[in-house]
Protein backbone atom coordinates (compact mmCIF):
# COMPACT_ATOMS: atom_id res chain seq x y z
CA UNK A 1 0.00 0.00 0.00
CA UNK A 2 2.66 2.45 1.03
CA UNK A 3 4.46 1.66 -2.19
CA UNK A 4 1.65 2.85 -4.35
CA UNK A 5 1.35 5.91 -2.15
CA UNK A 6 5.06 6.55 -2.63
CA UNK A 7 4.81 6.34 -6.42
CA UNK A 8 1.73 8.52 -6.46
CA UNK A 9 3.32 11.17 -4.29
CA UNK A 10 6.52 10.98 -6.30
CA UNK A 11 4.59 11.58 -9.48
CA UNK A 12 2.73 14.47 -7.95
CA UNK A 13 5.90 16.12 -6.68
CA UNK A 14 7.70 15.80 -10.00
CA UNK A 15 4.76 17.06 -11.97
CA UNK A 16 4.18 20.07 -9.79
CA UNK A 17 7.90 20.86 -9.73
CA UNK A 18 7.86 20.92 -13.51
CA UNK A 19 4.91 23.24 -13.44
CA UNK A 20 6.72 25.51 -10.97
CA UNK A 21 9.51 25.85 -13.45
CA UNK A 22 7.38 26.39 -16.52
CA UNK A 23 4.44 28.46 -15.22
CA UNK A 24 4.28 31.95 -16.73
CA UNK A 25 2.43 33.63 -13.89
CA UNK A 26 4.67 33.77 -10.81
CA UNK A 27 1.67 33.36 -8.53
CA UNK A 28 0.97 30.07 -10.22
CA UNK A 29 4.57 29.08 -9.62
CA UNK A 30 4.17 29.70 -5.93
CA UNK A 31 0.99 27.71 -5.75
CA UNK A 32 2.52 24.77 -7.50
CA UNK A 33 5.47 24.93 -5.19
CA UNK A 34 3.13 24.62 -2.24
CA UNK A 35 1.65 21.51 -3.82
CA UNK A 36 5.16 20.13 -4.17
CA UNK A 37 5.86 20.79 -0.55
CA UNK A 38 2.75 18.96 0.50
CA UNK A 39 3.74 16.00 -1.60
CA UNK A 40 7.14 15.89 0.02
CA UNK A 41 5.56 16.15 3.44
CA UNK A 42 3.52 13.10 2.51
CA UNK A 43 6.77 11.33 1.66
CA UNK A 44 8.05 12.18 5.10
CA UNK A 45 5.01 10.65 6.69
CA UNK A 46 5.51 7.48 4.67
CA UNK A 47 9.04 7.35 6.08
CA UNK A 48 7.59 7.79 9.57
CA UNK A 49 9.50 11.06 10.05
CA UNK A 50 6.54 12.68 11.71
CA UNK A 51 8.30 15.58 13.32
CA UNK A 52 9.94 16.48 10.05
CA UNK A 53 6.68 16.34 8.19
CA UNK A 54 4.95 18.70 10.59
CA UNK A 55 7.85 21.09 10.72
CA UNK A 56 8.13 20.94 6.92
CA UNK A 57 4.56 22.01 6.47
CA UNK A 58 4.69 24.68 9.13
CA UNK A 59 7.99 26.22 8.04
CA UNK A 60 7.97 25.80 4.30
CA UNK A 61 4.37 25.87 3.25
CA UNK A 62 3.30 28.07 6.09
CA UNK A 63 6.05 30.61 6.46
CA UNK A 64 8.37 30.61 3.51
CA UNK A 65 5.71 30.37 0.84
CA UNK A 66 3.70 33.05 2.55
CA UNK A 67 6.77 35.23 2.48
CA UNK A 68 7.18 34.59 -1.22
CA UNK A 69 3.59 35.49 -1.82
CA UNK A 70 3.96 38.66 0.18
CA UNK A 71 6.95 39.76 -1.84
CA UNK A 72 5.30 38.87 -5.13
CA UNK A 73 2.27 40.89 -4.26
CA UNK A 74 4.37 43.72 -2.94
CA UNK A 75 6.25 43.96 -6.19
CA UNK A 76 3.07 43.45 -8.10
CA UNK A 77 4.52 40.91 -10.48
CA UNK A 78 2.20 39.11 -12.79
CA UNK A 79 2.17 37.51 -16.15
CA UNK A 80 2.76 40.73 -18.19
CA UNK A 81 5.82 41.87 -16.33
CA UNK A 82 7.53 38.51 -16.57
CA UNK A 83 10.67 38.77 -18.72
CA UNK A 84 11.10 36.37 -21.60
CA UNK A 85 14.19 34.40 -22.21
CA UNK A 86 15.70 33.72 -25.58
CA UNK A 87 15.28 30.27 -27.09
CA UNK A 88 19.00 29.71 -26.98
CA UNK A 89 19.13 30.11 -23.26
CA UNK A 90 16.09 27.92 -22.82
CA UNK A 91 17.70 25.23 -24.88
CA UNK A 92 20.94 25.45 -22.98
CA UNK A 93 19.12 25.33 -19.68
CA UNK A 94 17.12 22.24 -20.55
CA UNK A 95 20.19 20.60 -21.95
CA UNK A 96 22.26 21.30 -18.88
CA UNK A 97 19.59 20.01 -16.56
CA UNK A 98 19.04 16.82 -18.51
CA UNK A 99 22.77 16.25 -18.79
CA UNK A 100 23.16 16.63 -15.06
CA UNK A 101 20.38 14.15 -14.46
CA UNK A 102 21.90 11.74 -16.89
CA UNK A 103 25.33 11.95 -15.35
CA UNK A 104 24.06 11.53 -11.83
CA UNK A 105 21.89 8.57 -12.67
CA UNK A 106 24.67 6.97 -14.62
CA UNK A 107 27.06 7.50 -11.73
CA UNK A 108 24.64 5.92 -9.30
CA UNK A 109 23.96 3.08 -11.68
CA UNK A 110 27.43 1.76 -11.21
CA UNK A 111 27.35 1.81 -7.47
CA UNK A 112 25.99 -0.87 -5.18
CA UNK A 113 23.98 -0.09 -2.10
CA UNK A 114 25.57 -1.16 1.08
CA UNK A 115 23.16 -3.09 3.28
CA UNK A 116 21.44 -1.23 6.03
CA UNK A 117 23.57 -0.91 9.15
CA UNK A 118 21.84 -2.05 12.27
CA UNK A 119 18.22 -2.61 12.72
CA UNK A 120 16.00 -0.22 10.96
CA UNK A 121 14.50 1.60 13.84
CA UNK A 122 11.11 2.80 12.83
CA UNK A 123 10.69 5.00 15.80
CA UNK A 124 13.45 7.47 15.26
CA UNK A 125 11.15 9.82 13.49
CA UNK A 126 9.03 10.32 16.56
CA UNK A 127 9.28 13.65 18.28
CA UNK A 128 10.48 12.34 21.56
CA UNK A 129 13.24 10.20 20.18
CA UNK A 130 14.36 12.87 17.76
CA UNK A 131 14.33 15.45 20.47
CA UNK A 132 16.48 13.29 22.68
CA UNK A 133 19.13 12.98 19.95
CA UNK A 134 18.87 16.64 19.10
CA UNK A 135 19.41 17.92 22.62
CA UNK A 136 22.01 15.40 23.60
CA UNK A 137 24.42 15.13 20.74
CA UNK A 138 23.57 18.06 18.55
CA UNK A 139 22.88 20.71 21.15
CA UNK A 140 25.72 22.99 20.03
CA UNK A 141 24.61 23.24 16.40
CA UNK A 142 21.14 23.79 17.74
CA UNK A 143 22.19 26.79 19.75
CA UNK A 144 24.35 28.10 16.95
CA UNK A 145 21.42 27.93 14.60
CA UNK A 146 19.63 30.35 16.87
CA UNK A 147 22.49 32.77 16.31
CA UNK A 148 22.09 32.17 12.61
CA UNK A 149 18.48 33.17 12.85
CA UNK A 150 19.40 36.24 14.78
CA UNK A 151 21.80 37.41 12.15
CA UNK A 152 19.32 36.64 9.39
CA UNK A 153 16.67 38.66 11.16
CA UNK A 154 18.91 41.60 11.69
CA UNK A 155 20.07 41.42 8.11
CA UNK A 156 16.58 41.24 6.72
CA UNK A 157 15.41 44.17 8.83
CA UNK A 158 18.42 46.28 7.88
CA UNK A 159 18.03 45.49 4.24
CA UNK A 160 14.40 46.26 4.22
CA UNK A 161 14.68 49.69 5.72
CA UNK A 162 14.15 52.65 3.56
CA UNK A 163 17.01 55.14 3.57
CA UNK A 164 15.38 58.49 4.41
CA UNK A 165 17.95 60.46 2.41
CA UNK A 166 17.48 58.51 -0.83
CA UNK A 167 13.84 57.79 -0.71
CA UNK A 168 11.93 60.25 1.38
CA UNK A 169 9.07 58.58 3.20
CA UNK A 170 6.16 60.49 1.74
CA UNK A 171 3.87 57.82 0.46
CA UNK A 172 0.92 59.90 1.23
CA UNK A 173 1.71 62.29 -1.60
CA UNK A 174 2.29 59.43 -4.18
Amino acid at each position, binding site marked *: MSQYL*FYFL*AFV*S*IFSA*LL*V*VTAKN*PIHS*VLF*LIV*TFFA*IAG*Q*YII*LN*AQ*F*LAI*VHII*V*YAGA*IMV*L*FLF*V*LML*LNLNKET*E*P*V*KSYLMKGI*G*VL*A*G*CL*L*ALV*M*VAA*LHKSTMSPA*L*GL*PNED*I*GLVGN*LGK*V*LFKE*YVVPFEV*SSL*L*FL*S*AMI*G*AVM*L*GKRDPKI*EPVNESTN
Partner: protein
Amino acid sequence: MKVPIEHYILLSTVLFCIGVMGVLLRRNAIILLMCVEIMLNSVNLLMAAFSTYHGDAAGQIFVFFIMVVAAAEVAVGLALIVMIYRNFKTTDINLFNKLKW
Protein backbone atom coordinates in the same frame (compact mmCIF):
# COMPACT_ATOMS: atom_id res chain seq x y z
CA MET B 1 10.58 -0.36 3.55
CA LYS B 2 9.32 -2.07 0.58
CA VAL B 3 10.39 0.79 -1.61
CA PRO B 4 14.04 0.23 -2.44
CA ILE B 5 16.39 3.04 -1.65
CA GLU B 6 17.34 3.37 -5.29
CA HIS B 7 13.92 4.72 -6.07
CA TYR B 8 14.28 7.39 -3.46
CA ILE B 9 17.65 8.30 -4.93
CA LEU B 10 16.17 8.49 -8.38
CA LEU B 11 13.30 10.65 -7.24
CA SER B 12 15.65 12.98 -5.43
CA THR B 13 17.92 13.24 -8.45
CA VAL B 14 15.04 14.10 -10.75
CA LEU B 15 13.74 16.75 -8.39
CA PHE B 16 17.22 18.22 -8.07
CA CYS B 17 17.68 18.43 -11.80
CA ILE B 18 14.27 20.02 -12.22
CA GLY B 19 15.41 22.62 -9.73
CA VAL B 20 18.63 23.16 -11.71
CA MET B 21 16.69 23.57 -14.91
CA GLY B 22 14.46 26.06 -13.24
CA VAL B 23 17.42 28.08 -12.09
CA LEU B 24 18.80 28.16 -15.60
CA LEU B 25 15.52 28.82 -17.34
CA ARG B 26 13.81 31.50 -15.31
CA ARG B 27 14.76 35.17 -15.36
CA ASN B 28 12.73 36.35 -12.44
CA ALA B 29 14.84 36.44 -9.32
CA ILE B 30 12.06 35.34 -7.05
CA ILE B 31 11.22 32.29 -9.11
CA LEU B 32 14.95 31.56 -9.05
CA LEU B 33 14.87 31.42 -5.30
CA MET B 34 11.91 29.10 -5.40
CA CYS B 35 13.75 26.71 -7.63
CA VAL B 36 16.63 26.73 -5.19
CA GLU B 37 14.06 25.69 -2.59
CA ILE B 38 13.10 22.76 -4.78
CA MET B 39 16.71 21.65 -4.88
CA LEU B 40 17.04 21.91 -1.12
CA ASN B 41 13.92 19.92 -0.63
CA SER B 42 15.07 17.12 -2.83
CA VAL B 43 18.15 16.79 -0.67
CA ASN B 44 16.01 16.87 2.44
CA LEU B 45 13.93 14.02 1.14
CA LEU B 46 16.95 11.92 0.39
CA MET B 47 18.47 12.56 3.78
CA ALA B 48 15.29 11.49 5.55
CA ALA B 49 15.11 8.37 3.42
CA PHE B 50 18.66 7.41 4.25
CA SER B 51 18.09 8.08 7.90
CA THR B 52 15.11 5.73 7.96
CA TYR B 53 16.96 3.05 6.04
CA HIS B 54 19.96 3.11 8.32
CA GLY B 55 18.11 3.76 11.54
CA ASP B 56 20.37 6.72 12.19
CA ALA B 57 18.77 9.85 13.56
CA ALA B 58 21.55 12.05 12.28
CA GLY B 59 19.91 12.23 8.89
CA GLN B 60 16.71 13.74 10.23
CA ILE B 61 18.66 16.13 12.49
CA PHE B 62 20.48 17.28 9.43
CA VAL B 63 17.24 17.81 7.58
CA PHE B 64 16.15 19.95 10.50
CA PHE B 65 19.20 22.11 10.19
CA ILE B 66 18.88 22.37 6.44
CA MET B 67 15.41 23.73 6.96
CA VAL B 68 16.77 26.26 9.42
CA VAL B 69 19.29 27.48 6.96
CA ALA B 70 16.82 27.52 4.10
CA ALA B 71 14.46 29.67 6.09
CA ALA B 72 17.12 32.16 7.01
CA GLU B 73 18.37 32.26 3.46
CA VAL B 74 14.93 32.90 2.03
CA ALA B 75 14.36 35.73 4.45
CA VAL B 76 17.57 37.49 3.64
CA GLY B 77 17.30 36.71 -0.09
CA LEU B 78 13.89 38.18 -0.40
CA ALA B 79 14.92 41.27 1.54
CA LEU B 80 17.72 41.71 -0.95
CA ILE B 81 15.40 41.30 -3.87
CA VAL B 82 13.05 43.90 -2.48
CA MET B 83 15.98 46.26 -2.09
CA ILE B 84 17.10 45.61 -5.65
CA TYR B 85 13.60 46.17 -6.94
CA ARG B 86 13.55 49.52 -5.24
CA ASN B 87 16.70 50.56 -7.13
CA PHE B 88 16.23 48.88 -10.49
CA LYS B 89 12.46 48.73 -10.65
CA THR B 90 12.77 45.18 -12.00
CA THR B 91 13.70 41.70 -10.87
CA ASP B 92 15.07 40.52 -14.18
CA ILE B 93 18.44 39.00 -13.40
CA ASN B 94 19.79 39.89 -16.82
CA LEU B 95 19.69 43.51 -15.82
CA PHE B 96 21.83 43.02 -12.74
CA ASN B 97 25.05 43.30 -14.71
CA LYS B 98 26.87 46.14 -13.03
CA LEU B 99 29.65 43.92 -11.70
CA LYS B 100 31.58 43.64 -14.91
CA TRP B 101 34.71 45.07 -16.57
